[in-house]
């Protein structure tokens, strides 16, 4: 479970300070599929980066399963990201010199799995994403949709507690986007907690809760199903 209290984040550019998150109180329960929406500049990606420990807030609290994250050292945050979180980025964020299976196996190797176990687990994740025939392809040899599926496989191969997705369909055509959202729905059905930032209403509707943001604040939350 993630809980934020009065979460703020500001950026300084010279003497000018821009407040992007203006005191957000938010709770995400285990197993939820949450879509965060809002117009450009609303602060939704910044909010996602705070919750996923990729960035440090200027003020407020973030608790993850009772752990107070602002007390964590960089090493503890890194370990938390490795073991408990999975990430899907808009531009796939795959390492160009690693094959699909190597990209997926890398976090598993970092978790000290043996090479054989990591590769087997990675290959399994890719097969479930329909990429069993693309294991040894480099990202440059894959389509956008395939790269995003590799990215999702990497994010979930180690069975993270929370999957964070930052506009995962923004760079994809409709067909590929629908394929990605089907994977997300399947994962959610299996109990995976997902927090996704998206612009697209069509895909936000697939989430169990839609959180709308504007000007650094949550302006509404809609529960579905």
């Amino acid at each position, binding site marked *: 479970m993630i809980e934020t209290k009065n979460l703020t984040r500001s950026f300084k550019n010279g003497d000018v300070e821009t407040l992007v998150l203006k005191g957000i109180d938010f709770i995400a329960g285990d197993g939820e599929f949450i879509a965060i929406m809002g117009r450009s500049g609303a602060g939704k990606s910044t909010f996602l*980066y705070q919750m996923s420990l*990729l*960035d440090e807030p200027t003020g407020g609290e973030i608790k993850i399963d009772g752990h107070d994250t602002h007390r964590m050292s960089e*090493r503890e945050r*890194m*370990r938390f*990201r*490795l*073991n408990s*979180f999975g*990430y899907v*980025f808009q531009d796939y*964020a795959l*390492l*160009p*010199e*690693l094959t699909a299976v*190597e990209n997926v196996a*890398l*976090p598993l*190797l*970092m978790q*000290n799995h043996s090479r054989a176990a990591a590769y087997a687990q990675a290959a399994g994740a890719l097969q479930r994403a329909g990429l069993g025939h693309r294991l040894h392809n*480099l990202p440059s040899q894959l389509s956008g949709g395939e790269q995003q599926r590799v990215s999702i496989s*990497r994010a979930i191969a180690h069975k993270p507690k929370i999957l964070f997705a930052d506009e995962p369909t923004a760079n994809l055509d409709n067909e590929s986007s629908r394929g990605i959202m089907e994977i997300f729905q399947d994962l959610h059905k299996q109990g995976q907690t997902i927090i996704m930032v998206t612009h697209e209403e069509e895909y936000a509707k697939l989430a169990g809760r839609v959180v709308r943001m504007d000007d650094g604040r949550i302006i509404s939350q809609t529960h579905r199903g």
Partner: protein
Amino acid sequence: MPLNVRIGFFLATRALRRASLWTTGLIIGVMVLTFLNLVVVSGILVGLLQGAVDAVRTQYTSDVIISSLNDKKYIENSPNLISLIESLPQVGTYTARYREAGVLEANYKTRKETDKPNTASAVLVGINPVKEQAVTGIAGSIIEGEFISPGDYDKIVVGGYLLKQYFPVETPGFTTLENVRIGTKIRLTVGAVTREVTVKGILKSKVDEVSMRAYMVDSQFRSLIGRNDGNVDEIAIKLLAGETPESVRDALLARGVGAAAKVQTYDDAQPKFLKDMIITFNMLGTAFSSIGLVVASITIFIVVFINAITRRKFIGILKGIGITGHAIEISYIFQSIFYALVGSGLGLALVYGFLVPFVAAHPVDFPFSDGILVAPVDSTFFRMGLLVFSTLIAGYIPARMIIRKNTLDSILGRN
């Protein structure tokens, strides 16, 4: 294997395997050139003098040289000494030389009374041509005519530095013979004796001692200088392969030879200025190499820095998904070590597989020596170690600079 090292190795091998061949080739090329700069520059500088040292050894002193004491005209009891030398098991062969200062004169038949005689001061040497050739092989330095033979009478071989056409140097007080060719008759004066001899050969060597001498057959030279007791002026000893000159020197000194003669190894007999120059050139070589090492380090620093900057986003992603900064740093260290080892390995192969044997077979024709490439294995490996270490540091620092940047800023490409 520690986890960070394992992951670093994993990342490094993939980065190297899938890197652009041009980039990899360029970096390795820089490393090879740096290695050659480290080893070859000082190696040629030292080799330039080592070539001179080697030439003096092969053409003049051989492994051990015995010469008359400074206050004696010749080596006393030479026949006994020669018997002792012959009895030493380390000795392969030797040559005994008679040596006197004398004057050569040319063009005396065409000279007018008012003309200044065309003379040259020379060291005149009486040798057994067969033994001399076996020890020093100086017949190989003949550039005109032939070397003297045991039965020759009134025949002489003249060093090139005594002839104007081979040594056109106008030094005050130093004169050379003009118009002297093969078959030319010249006058030779030793003490009060003057003799007319025919030039049979001209030899030229980069060893001054060899080129400043004139050579006759020892039997005739003995009568010329009036020495019939068998005492000689210098003996050059060539040892059997694997024997050390020091052991023979010490064995001779232990038998009291030092009381009648100066016993020196080829190294002892080197002029001090040559030894000083070797040390000086070594220092110069090290200085030039150090500059090369700094340049290589800066090159690797720039290459890794640019590589890390262009890969900053991916470094951010790696950190974002939980790969430790140490593992990423280690991957860059592995890559740097790879470049240094492959570059040095190719450099080693080039130096020992090609350059050293090639330069040994085709010495560099310097004015005063036939330069070789001196690359002692221990010093080469030390320089290789230095190169690998400096490359490692030069690769680590820029990688660390980029890895320390904020993870999210790196992912998003923010400054």
